[in-house]
């Protein structure tokens, strides 16, 4: 049996993310020495608000991904557990709170990469996109005793009520205005609106490139996989709004276009195309990419790695707060189950022409995986596409059993031909 040969032909330009990550976190670490404030942002927040004020900021989940990708999470999770946080708490939070607690004891883990040894926050920003976020922020506030701004994300409980939609957008804008006042107070400076517009212009430029990339992404056979897009995700998320992010996506788009032109594919013999739903075990991205490819299968697409600001039409730098507020309704956690099924499962399943759907149910993220079974059954009934649910975790490897997960996934792939229409 062949074992050593690489089967997943990754998009080379995604490697450029390593430099972007390093530069980003080094800039955060320099902030206290340069007299800049430091913000820990819990949740997928409006980072451009901080960037415009030259505040050293990072997203606690993105930082957790970087920690677990370097296999450095264990000591921090254990520190959280010692403080009484259940192992069922969101593992992003466990890692981050554990780090905060260790920091207070003056014990930053030796094995943690220097760029990930982020400084203490001057303030916290929270966007409560799931039930853990506000509590997580409170836990950090207890440790650091610093101000915190908690932004309440409105839920869109009616997919068709335009008035309800507009009320939610206004509600978000009002809170963003309060956030701006909060930042002015923290920094003692007036808000630099022109700089915010400039950053949003870069976000728009990146979104235009990404839109072109999304079209190439759907190509059959696949020239760029879900896993490649997962590696690139940070540049659309917390690292966004820079010329480097625009150049990064341009390089990926051009490479993928070239691959399609030259007939270069993700796997040599693509037999099965799959959609991935929900986040994924970040510490197993390389393994999973290779695992599927070895079985002539490609996880082609998934909502999670589309990330924020995917539609350039919704980005208007002349209306900066409206732009930020308008971004939130594009996310699954503020939407109804019906909307998620239509937009993030059925529509994507059709666009990517998939044979099956893999649902990831993270052990420490039940708020975003409780509906997998019903959603899977509905998609199966309406589109005839089979699904499987695997239980693992996004950033806690103790909830990942490789033999169990691999066995279920392989068995699922082996059943796919029996679903093909004759």
């Amino acid at each position, binding site marked *: *049996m062949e074992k050593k040969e690489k089967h997943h032909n990754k998009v080379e330009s995604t490697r450029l993310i390593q430099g972007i990550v390093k530069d980003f976190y080094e800039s955060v670490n320099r902030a206290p020495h340069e007299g800049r404030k430091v913000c820990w942002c819990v949740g997928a927040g409006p980072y451009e608000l901080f960037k415009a004020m030259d505040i050293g900021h990072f997203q606690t989940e993105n930082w957790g991904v970087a920690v677990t990708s370097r296999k450095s999470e264990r000591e921090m999770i254990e520190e959280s557990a010692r403080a009484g946080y259940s192992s069922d708490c969101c593992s992003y939070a466990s890692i981050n709170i554990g780090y905060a607690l260790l920091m207070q004891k003056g014990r930053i883990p030796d094995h943690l990469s220097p760029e990930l040894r982020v400084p203490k926050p001057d303030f916290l920003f929270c966007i409560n996109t799931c039930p853990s976020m506000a509590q997580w922020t409170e836990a950090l506030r207890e440790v650091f005793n610093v101000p915190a701004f908690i932004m309440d994300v409105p839920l869109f409980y009616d997919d068709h009520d335009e008035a309800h939609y507009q009320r939610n957008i206004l509600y978000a804008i009002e809170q963003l205005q309060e956030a701006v006042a909060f930042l002015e107070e923290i920094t003692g400076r007036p808000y630099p609106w022109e700089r915010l517009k400039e950053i949003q212009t870069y976000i728009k430029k990146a979104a235009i490139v990404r839109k072109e990339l999304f079209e190439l992404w759907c190509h059959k056979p696949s020239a760029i996989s879900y896993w490649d897009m997962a590696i690139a995700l940070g540049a659309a998320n917390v690292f966004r709004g820079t010329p480097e992010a625009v150049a990064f996506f341009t390089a990926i788009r051009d490479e993928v276009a070239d691959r399609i032109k030259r007939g270069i594919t993700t796997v040599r013999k693509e037999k099965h195309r799959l959609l991935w739903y929900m986040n994924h075990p970040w510490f197993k991205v390389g393994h999973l990419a290779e695992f599927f490819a070895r079985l002539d299968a490609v996880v082609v697409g998934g909502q999670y790695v589309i990330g924020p600001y995917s539609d350039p039409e919704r980005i208007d730098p002349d209306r900066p707060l409206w732009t930020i507020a308008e971004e939130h309704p594009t996310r699954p956690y503020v939407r109804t189950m019906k909307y998620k099924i239509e937009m993030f499962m059925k529509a994507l399943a059709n666009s990517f022409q998939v044979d099956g759907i893999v649902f990831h149910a993270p052990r420490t993220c039940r708020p975003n995986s409780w509906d997998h079974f019903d959603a899977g059954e509905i998609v199966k009934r309406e589109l005839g596409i*089979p699904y499987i649910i695997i*239980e693992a975790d996004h950033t806690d490897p103790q909830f990942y*059993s490789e*033999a*169990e997960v691999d*066995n*279920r996934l*392989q*068995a699922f792939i*082996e*059943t796919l*031909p*029996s*679903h093909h229409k004759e």
Partner: protein
Amino acid sequence: MFAAGIDIGSLTAKTVIVDDRARIVGHALVLTGAMSKRAGEISFESALKVAGISSSDVTYVLATGYGRNNVPFAKAEMTEITCHARGAHHLFPETRTIIDIGGQDSKAISVNERGAATNFMMNDKCAAGSGRFLEVMARALEIELDRMGELSLQSTKEVPISSMCTVFAESEVVSAVAKGLDPHDIINGIHHAIAKRVSVLVEHVGVKERVLMSGGVAKNVGVVRALEKQLNTALLIPEDPQLVGALGAAVIALERARVQASST
């Protein structure tokens, strides 16, 4: 032409060798132990002896089970889900649902008329409802595992075992023994606890007759009866239920050997 299927599970390693008409000519079963690679080799060598052939006579070897990636002389590997489906179909073509209770997991598999698995459901990451669960309970009751089935038939009532965690259920059993409850009734309760748990998996994929049971636990008549009662259907029980996966692997291996032969 001969083909072989090797199924390396958590407790036992099984080999089945078939001839060019897919008839079983040799089989063997050994304990997996700590060295699954060696267990695969031993079971293969034993099956060759039974068949009276040498390894060079075997055109294609296909490995399955949890240790399937650890069989260097196998040409390919597939999951036990696919192999159980094919093995069951080979023995009983009318099979549409399989209940497989092995050493460390239990599963329900839907099978189509061609012997392909179309859907499956497995137990979660714990040993509840598996052969290992029964082993632990036998130890707690100080009886031989192989006798549990016949002993449960002497039961007049069922002692409910509510916990499905193997360790906690063991405590329940110890407690029931301490209360002086009839061991036959306790065993009966254990079997029904397994049947209830496994029937949930079966109902998830859909109970479509006929239902075949494979895996070592199919030799336990008490569990079989409890499942039949729970699912309200008579189960098909192969003569050697532990060999179904290896047989399926051998049948698939034979098909591949034929394709290979026709293309050369």
